């Protein structure tokens, strides 16, 4: 047993997992508000990161300005997507809505490649101290910041859904749109808001990953990683999403450890979360924290 490797991998898993958690949360946000399973979540990261990259390199904006502009752009982007594509689908079966988000995913994935090419592109160096040493593991400062940001976002989400009026409104809308309207809630506004928030939060994750790894279409894979995370957590649980993200992050890294030390299969790191997903679902069909549908006849 190589303990230092295991420790380092675990730490790496937590850092990456926090990012998964953030993306998973923004996924859950949309799901909770509009019961839409967003298969284009990864593309939010992608679009956000590319837009930010564009502003920093082509417009030569300072980081904070480019970043804020990106967030503003993503707010609009999320709202427009919701209004143009998803609003007409309100009332259609789940599968239609899923397909629409898949369609969006395919479309933006291809569009980004078309515009920005297939090569991974680096962000200009942003922070002077790029790394710190943590338990023998070199960690990018952005990652640590992202960990901080993640925690902040998570706390915000938790408050939002349980205590705030708009959070309740979102849940009500998710449950029954007609009833929500009868309560004075503007359903279109709730939907647009959830998409905007989700897009912005995902874009933050996208920029963070972009700064560390460079921007490339690989970012959209976070959208797929979200699924094991949210299933582990339960589709409609914010806390579940965070934990699910962390678990998936750590799991991947442990799988890599297992692989490197004994198995030598090579790709456990990518496939392990999906095995975990299946196993969890077999044991708990609604994930670890998901609420069971109320089925009264």
């Amino acid at each position, binding site marked *: 047993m190589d303990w230092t490797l295991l420790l380092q991998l675990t730490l790496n898993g937590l850092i*990456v997992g926090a990012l998964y958690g953030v993306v998973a949360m923004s996924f859950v946000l949309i799901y909770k508000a509009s019961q839409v399973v967003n298969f284009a979540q990864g593309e939010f990261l992608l679009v956000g990161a590319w837009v930010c990259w564009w502003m920093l390199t082509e417009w030569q904006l300072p980081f904070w300005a480019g970043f804020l502009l990106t967030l503003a752009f993503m707010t609009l982007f999320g709202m427009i997507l919701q209004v143009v594509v998803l609003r007409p689908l309100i009332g259609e079966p789940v599968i239609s809505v899923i397909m629409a988000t898949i369609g969006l995913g395919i479309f933006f994935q291809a569009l980004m490649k078309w515009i920005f090419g*297939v*090569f991974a592109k680096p962000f200009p*160096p942003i922070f002077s101290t790029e790394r710190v040493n943590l338990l023998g593991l*070199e960690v*990018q400062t952005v990652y640590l910041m992202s960990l901080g940001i993640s925690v902040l976002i998570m706390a915000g989400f938790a408050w939002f859904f349980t205590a705030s009026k708009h959070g309740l409104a979102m849940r009500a809308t998710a449950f029954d749109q007609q009833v929500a309207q009868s309560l004075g809630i503007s359903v279109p506004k709730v939907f647009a808001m959830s998409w905007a928030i989700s897009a912005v939060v995902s874009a933050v994750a996208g920029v963070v990953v972009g700064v560390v*790894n460079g921007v490339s279409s690989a970012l959209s894979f976070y959208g797929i990683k979200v699924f094991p995370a949210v299933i582990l957590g339960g589709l409609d649980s914010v806390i579940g999403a965070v934990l699910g993200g962390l678990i998936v992050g750590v799991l991947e890294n442990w799988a890599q450890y297992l692989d*490197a030390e004994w198995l030598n299969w090579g790709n456990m*790191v*990518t496939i392990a979360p999906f095995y975990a997903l299946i196993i969890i679902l077999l044991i708990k069909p609604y994930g670890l924290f998901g609420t069971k549908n109320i089925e009264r006849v």
Partner: protein
Amino acid sequence: QQRIPVGHLMDNSGATSDVGVPYGQGVADTLAWVNASRNGIGGRPLNVLGFDYGYQAPRAVSQYQAWNRDRVVAIQGWGTADTEALVRFVTRDRIPFVSGSYSAALTDAGGKSGRQGVEPAPYNFFYGPSYSDGLRAMLRWAAEDWKTRGGQGKPKYVHMGGNHPYPNSPKAAGEALAAELGFEVLPAIVFALTPGDYTAQCLTLKSQGANYAYLGNTAGSNISVLRACQTAGVNVQFLGNVWGMDENAMKAAGAAANGVVFPVRTAVVWGQDAPGMATLRQISRISDASGNAYRPVHYMAGACAAMLMVEAMDTASASGGELTGERIRNGFYARQGWVPKGFEGVCNPSTFTAEDHRGTLRVGLYRAVVTGDTSQGSVAELMQSGTMKLQPVTVVELPRTRETLGW
């Protein structure tokens, strides 16, 4: 005059499009230049049928069948998986296939090596040393390097790459030679052909304590590994595949790419001078009227590969009669130490025989040198200013032995 149909398989959108785009551009420009500057082959212009197959072998096979219906006489190919899948078909249909895959398994033209899983490939050609030979050369250099650096004990070698025919191709050959040269061979590390976060792999690499690591993928995903390993503080000499590093990748990886050693197939790189560079600059203008574009190593290799096919077709057509695949293949055997006319000092000499399609066993190794920030400025500017350099390391001549044929 009827145009000569020629297939051109490209990856402009798939996992290897990072290097597929410049290589494909090189091929396309060269063939267009052949049409423009001397009206094709024997007065008949080429009708180049391009197809972007997104690095998916099944799509290549299906496209091949379409081309076969269109009676193409020769094909410019690309990936290992698809080339290996198509070998049987091109042999059956007698269509010369100039691949972008340098898998050694494709060099056994006569099928005499008797190796398992190696089929005769009498119609398959490529320009440059095979992946295995490239890796053999780097290992020989690494063994020397270990000594000159005064390394203690056995150096450790590890193969890294995706689980895919292309990175897998030289794996066994490399590990065998490494063991023979006194390396300790570590379990291979897998990372996907696409960019991503490979921190976990790098941490493994670090804890293994490898000294020399072969990067079997193309530039795009290699960059991810290089960057992740730089962050994780891995101290290892990376050996890149021939597609594993180039000027674009150096810019994208920045300092992380510094020090990577890899084979370069041409005698010079863009910006250096040689008699043939004038021709190459003409070719470059086909897709870049301004003439300012910087062309990475793969573009130049693409030009050389295309020219092999063109001159083989010239030969076939010069001897009169119909331009058949069989005659074009014979055109490849017509010359020894073959450098296409007008490309002297650029394309390295190749020799093909009916038994042995290893065009060359001479491997030129270069080192990527990055000395500053690469995020600002174009590749051309960075190369000009010397922030990025391709530094010749050594040239390794490998023996042309029967044992290494097809392996």
